[in-house]
């Protein structure tokens, strides 16, 4: 290669050389900073949206409380934080996490009850759920804003790259949570309610008994098998305490199989409302309930079967779509098939409707 020709030096003009060299030097020195500015403008737009969602959910909650609203108290609730137990010594950490999370839930419930003494349990559960959504949105805003400002302050482009990569997922979740407010306010079943919906339908006409906090169970027969049906107590928004319920039922009864019905996140490209069967404890959340159920089942050598309904993040927390609602009968049939295929007449099976039971009676 003729380097003189390449750099425009063949005609001996230093000006031509500058045209080449200066931009290269400029981009070498300032390229990252330019990228930081370009990325910053996208992130700034997303942060503005997150701020709008966070403020909007707070305003919606205050609007829902109407004359009872106490903005100071609500803002204090929104700023509550939870310090998770240390995992330096992970053995025995699950009960500690469960204790911390439940303490927080119980405290919030007690505080809300004392602040809004005129609200019944159903309305209190709704307010608590709306508060949780508003807290999550505020936390998302604060974390993203913190990462952005840190990267900007230190003019550190590599710091902003992971944020830029994660932002579409964070925004999807924030948009879904923001859309969930109206469903929970009105007590409409959401996509995640499909598990309680299927089990709740089976529980109709049966005697419902308390199994654990905000959780009910009933006993019925199917094809010679005894069925123990468990779900969170609806129609208030709650996921119940299925882990405690399973432990309680297993301590008193001989169970031969556990079937869990839950909504699960679909992969991109998969159809919504598709139903799949598998093995293992189908339950989300922070993992403590899952741990409890797995522990109780493995100690007694009980197989755990899962029936999942695939949904997107948005479908899971916003009002149930017709496609999902229409699958309830099919899922019920699959539960019965699973029972017939895996148990003999005379045996017992526990069916758990996992998910938020907002708007779903039993």
């Amino acid at each position: 290669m003729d380097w003189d020709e390449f750099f425009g030096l063949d005609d001996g003009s230093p000006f031509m050389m500058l045209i080449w060299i200066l931009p290269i030097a400029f981009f070498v020195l300032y390229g990252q900073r330019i990228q930081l500015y370009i990325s910053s403008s996208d992130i700034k737009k997303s942060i503005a949206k997150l701020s709008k969602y966070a403020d909007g959910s707070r305003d919606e909650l205050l609007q829902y409380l109407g004359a009872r609203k106490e903005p100071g108290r609500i803002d204090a609730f929104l700023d509550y934080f939870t310090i998770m137990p240390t995992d330096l010594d992970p053995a025995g950490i699950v009960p500690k996490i469960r204790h911390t999370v439940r303490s927080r839930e119980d405290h919030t419930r007690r505080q809300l009850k004392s602040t809004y003494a005129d609200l019944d349990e159903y309305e209190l559960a709704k307010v608590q759920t709306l508060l949780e959504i508003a807290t999550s949105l505020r936390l998302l805003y604060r974390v993203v804003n913190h990462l952005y400002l840190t990267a900007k302050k230190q003019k550190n482009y590599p710091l902003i790259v992971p944020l830029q990569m994660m932002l579409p997922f964070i925004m999807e979740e924030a948009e879904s949570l923001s859309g969930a407010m109206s469903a929970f306010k009105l007590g409409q079943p959401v996509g995640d309610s499909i598990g309680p919906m299927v089990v709740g339908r089976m529980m109709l006409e049966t005697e419902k008994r308390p199994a654990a906090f905000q959780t009910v169970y009933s006993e019925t027969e199917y094809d010679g098998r005894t069925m123990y049906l468990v779900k969170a107590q609806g129609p208030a928004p709650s996921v119940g305490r299925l882990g405690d319920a399973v432990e309680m039922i297993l301590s008193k009864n001989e169970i031969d199989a556990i079937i869990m019905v839950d909504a699960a996140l679909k992969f991109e490209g998969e159809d919504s409302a598709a139903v799949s069967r598998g093995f293992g404890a189908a339950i989300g959340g922070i993992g403590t309930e899952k741990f409890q159920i797995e522990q109780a089942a493995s100690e007694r050598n009980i197989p755990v079967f899962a029936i999942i309904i695939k949904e997107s993040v948005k479908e899971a927390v916003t009002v149930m779509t017709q496609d999902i609602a229409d699958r309830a009968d099919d899922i019920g049939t699959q539960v019965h098939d699973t029972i017939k295929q895996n148990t003999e007449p005379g045996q017992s099976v526990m069916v758990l409707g996992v998910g938020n039971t907002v708007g779903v009676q039993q």
Partner: protein
Amino acid sequence: MIFKKKTVTIVYTVRRCGSCGKESRSEFVAGDCLFAGSDCPCGKKAMVEKIFCNTMPAS
């Protein structure tokens, strides 16, 4: 697509009567919940069988 199409979401409540089998669909009103009972014109009880939303383009 530069502009997003505007959509409206309507939530429906579907009731079915256990006796006459009549199915009726109405817009969701506050207080509706799945498996709650209501009166059917046949004199028996209808039950809320489904609550779901439909999203359609705004006209």
